[in-house]
């Protein structure tokens, strides 16, 4: 009986909840993660383009603290200046299922770090690397592409729409689509 109890407690501790971890001390601000991603399914050859994802993105988008931090940073770095609350403004919307440069977290990190044509500036050297990941994780939560119990609740703020955790789960169509705003008028 006692052994059973100790064993079950040990199992509990080992499976402790990743969702709830809080990393207050981030990596050195100069560190930069490398993810090899493709922006288009096209490649020069018979095989599709090579991608190499380290998987650290999961640690961000499955962690409620990171996503919530991202939600703060999203406003502090004025992402809402162009993308509004995810519905889009002068920048494309972030809560729908269309991703010009791919909707995986690594793609979003690259987009924030490198910048994209037609207005998205590069934030390399301006936002520490792990904060970029946090923002990207939050962006993923806007269309509820993260788990419900990870997505943030409402802010103590005006109420534009139901908070991320109450949105229906989204489905990401992978990168390389052309957004309607980028299409030439026919």
């Amino acid at each position, binding site marked *: 009986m006692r052994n059973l109890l100790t064993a079950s*407690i040990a199992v*509990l*501790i080992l*499976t*402790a*909840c990743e*969702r*709830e*971890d*809080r990393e*207050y001390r981030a990596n050195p601000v100069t560190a930069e993660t490398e993810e090899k991603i493709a922006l288009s399914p096209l490649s020069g050859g018979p095989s599709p383009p090579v991608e190499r994802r380290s998987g650290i993105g999961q640690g961000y988008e499955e962690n*409620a*603290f990171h*996503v*919530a931090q991202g939600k703060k940073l999203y406003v502090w770095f004025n992402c809402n200046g162009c993308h509004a609350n995810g519905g889009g403004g002068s920048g494309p919307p972030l809560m729908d299922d269309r991703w010009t440069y791919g909707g995986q977290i690594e793609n979003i990190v690259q987009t924030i770090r490198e910048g994209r044509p037609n207005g998205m500036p590069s934030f390399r050297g301006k936002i520490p690397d792990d904060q970029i990941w946090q923002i990207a994780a939050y962006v993923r939560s806007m269309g509820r592409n993260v788990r*419900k*119990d*990870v997505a*943030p*609740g*409402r*802010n*103590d*703020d*005006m*109420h534009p729409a*139901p*908070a991320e*955790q*109450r949105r229906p789960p989204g489905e990401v169509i992978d990168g390389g689509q052309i957004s309607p705003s980028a299409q030439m008028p026919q």
Partner: protein
Amino acid sequence: MTQTLAPHDVALDAVPEPTRLLTGQPAGMPGVQSEADAPPDPRELRDDQVDGQELTARLARTWGTRKGIIGALSTVDHKIIGRRYIITAFIFLFLGGLSAVAMRMQLARPESGLIGPDLYNQLFTMHGTTMMFLFGVPIGEAFAVFLLPLMLGTRNIAFARLNAYSYYVYLFGGAMIWFAFMLNIGPDVGWFAYVPLSGPEFSPGKRVDFWAQMITFTEVAGIAVAVQIVVTVFKMRAPGMTLDRIPLFVWAELVNAFIIIFALPAVVTASVMLIMDRLVGTHFFNPAEGGDALLYQHLFWFFGHPEVYIIFIPATGWVSAIVVTFSRRQAFGYIPLVLSMIATGFLSFGLWVHHMFTTGLPQLGASFFTASSMLIAIPNGIQIFCWIATLWDGRPVFRTPLLFVMGFFFIFVAGGLSGIMLASVPIDAQVHDTMFVVAHFHYVLIGGNVFPLLGAVYYWFPKFTGRMMSERLGKWHFWLAFIGFNITFFPMHITGLMGMPRRVYTYLPEMGWGNLNLISTLGATMLFASFVVFLVNVVVSARRGALAGPNPWDAGTLEWATSSPPLPQNFDRIPVVTNREPLWAHRNTLPVVAGLSVENREVIISTATAGRADLKESSPEPSIWPFLAAIATTVTFIGSIFTPWAIVWGGLPTTITLLGWFWPKGVKEDEA
């Protein structure tokens, strides 16, 4: 062994006329033949037909608990459930204590790296939450569950199945929050969980949701037990126990139960609002949409201040019982003692704002609450003086229980004095959220609850187990605890005045708080050691302690009239009460009631004030359904943390289990 069945052989002029002990009213309306008035089945054996060993054995079979795991989970015996309740509350006391020891280790020296900020936040929250909700409220009720039916001279607590259900809900709620803590989902926002810190914006994840649901669990259990206590005290007293013959401990538990009934709904309201803000996006505490964060504080402290008295009032009951027994005289000032308990109960609802002096309230309000905070010192002072007078006038016997009561006097009065300092707004504004406050409320709570509680354990342990606790270890325990406590908490007054804030996981060496903190930690080690001694004493005494006998302390209240530990039926015949201390009034022969069933569970229901026997209701048989209902409730509550729809789909199994619980099963089991 032959016993007289006639009411006149010993000179007991105190026994009132039988007509004054019975109402004799039929159940039916005039002209209506009620089934309740039908004459009892002549085939059913009643306790005026059997006697002695046979009566004891038959009653024990009727009131007993079945063997095996199902039997154990089905039991409705208040002594078994009360024992579980007490042990569970003590386990939570130890867990809360261990988290405190961990915090003291971290604070022993400046810039210690033992425990990080995140774990430290969870630790102090778990410590406070456990001590207040999982130990403080339940321990008073736990003692009531075990002792009240014995002290009142009845055979079970009112609504015995609800009692079992309450225990399981409490157990599951407490286990849930501790498992959550082990899974790194421990709440980290303080035991009060103030918004906006605990709101959806600043507390991501599920940590606070588990805290809020833990509140729901413990409050459901707490209110249900409080109702059982009130009904047991009002309606199940032995015949002849008028209001002024109720033992002081029972009065304390009654007042406590009323405070619980009126205070706990406030914290449920607050935690429901909080969890709705977090999960379904309501705006109770969102200032941008018309909500207000202070609303939470008002609701919380409307509960939170009476909570202090929920913790303290049962202790006044323990102290009263111990002081009377060991002074060898009746309580000095019984009526003032009872009235001051009631006054404390009422005043406790007028104090909550003194926890909010630094929130910028209007000056007039602050002055009013300063006055009421000082006012409550009066009834508490009356109690202390009554106890001292009882001791003074009696012939005190300094056994371990009384030693702990002495410790209580010193520590609680010291805590009360720093409380009067804190009641004044200017001082409070200075020391708010410093270690001074920590020192104050530990003097009040440990002095006011834990010391009397330990005394109560030494006092009633023979009744619980049939064996005495070791007096030698008890003295070691007391002195280690008393000295250790003061070494731990006295320096906190000074660190607080030096400006050390509460709830910080470390501090810089330049602040100069290092030495005092080290002393506190050493004291905490000593306090910890005292509890180890206590645990050893409990375990060893339960197995090898000296046999106690029914009344080892020569006490006067009814729980000592039965064997130790009591048989399932508590009493072979229900006593008739003629005195505040029945066993001192009737040293050889106890006046009793006859005529109750031996084959079915029957209890006497008496009138609320005069204590006349009015009805003989049936008391619930054991049932597994309360346990199943508690499981269904648990699944519903935990599910609702993850989706609000859990309330809907969890409602069905809960309803089914409740139906199973209440649906009558046969003739014998004709109760609800």
